[in-house]
């Protein structure tokens, strides 16, 4: 499976190494080459310096027809743009955008984008830790990925 990851933060680097470890072809993109220090020195994927919201950069990274696309930069809006480019211009099969603002995450989930919302997930986890009822919003955002794509991704690996 061919995966494109935009944003080489802790999450991006972590999932890139996990995918490479299970034998997938991974290209990770970041605007800063120092971000690639988060990758292990023997990282077997490709790392490209560039703006992942720029269609030319994504094309060069091989986004066209990729199997998987994760938009994981620190900017919600950059992730929204990159994810929609991947889905609508480059016909990537499975696209996930990290959106930390719960309002925006819910809005884009209802527009059919797979959103993962760190805020909603952490609030949900902490509420459960306290024995309170979980956050239905976090559940919904998470299950969108689970139902539609999670099974297929694990199956492909």
């Amino acid at each position, binding site marked *: 499976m061919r995966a494109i990851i935009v944003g080489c933060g802790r999450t991006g680097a972590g999932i890139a190494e996990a995918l490479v470890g299970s034998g997938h072809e991974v290209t990770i993109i970041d605007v800063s080459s120092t971000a690639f220090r988060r990758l292990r020195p023997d990282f077997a994927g490709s790392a490209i310096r560039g703006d992942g*919201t*720029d*269609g*030319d950069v994504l094309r060069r990274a091989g986004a066209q027809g990729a199997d998987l696309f994760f938009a994981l930069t620190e*900017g*919600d*809006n*950059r992730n*929204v*743009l990159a994810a*929609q*480019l991947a889905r*609508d*211009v480059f016909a990537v099969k499975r696209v996930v955008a990290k959106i930390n*603002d719960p*309002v*925006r995450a819910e*809005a*884009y989930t*209802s*527009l059919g984008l797979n959103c993962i919302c760190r805020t909603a997930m952490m609030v949900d986890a902490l509420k459960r830790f306290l024995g309170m009822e979980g956050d239905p919003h976090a559940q919904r955002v998470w299950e969108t990925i689970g139902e539609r794509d999670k099974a297929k991704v694990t199956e492909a690996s």
Partner: protein
Amino acid sequence: MFIMVVGAGRVGYYLTKELLASGHEVVLIEKDPGRAAQVSADLGSIVINRDGCEGRDLESAGANRADIVVAVTGDDEDNLVICQMAKHHFNVPRTIARVDNPKNGELFRELGVSDVISATRNALAAIEQDIPVHELLHLAQLQHGDIEVVEAQITEDSPAVGQFARQLSLPDGCIIFALIRNDVLEVIRSDTMLQPGDKVVALSRTDTQDDVQRLLIGESPVEAVEA
């Protein structure tokens, strides 16, 4: 009309001033407190120091009753999100986004933004009118961008050379109506024969422009190589 402008850079500031002068109700949203204070000294209480990308902030600024939302921040991705939130979350009938990367223009329209404005695109068009090109020049948009006025420069390689206007099998939704030959404007008649050097002006639906380009200019060099 109630117009919400997001981003108080130079574009947002001058746009707001002009809209106010034309008698519209306007709010200007700016997330940077310093810049917001600076423009509100001039424009008054219509300046709101909030983040136009935040759903709650858009709502408190009155997005629910806005007729138009104009997103003119310096970041294409922010302008996209502002317009999409306005359209889908607040049912704003018309949204306008500034794009700096001209390649984002078409994508943003496909993603539901009503109008896209691009200084980069306009500057390109102004330059390209003076140099030979192998693509349609986009002169003006009508009907929120569904129809465009385009110009095709006929070269010696154009398939249309030596053909009468009536012989051209133009797609539906395309009319060629004028040409510029030796700097003189002429109306195209059925017996007008196209010559190298002509600049043909056409009205065309955006979805038929590939056909128009192929017919009047020919395959672009890049496509020809790939094919």
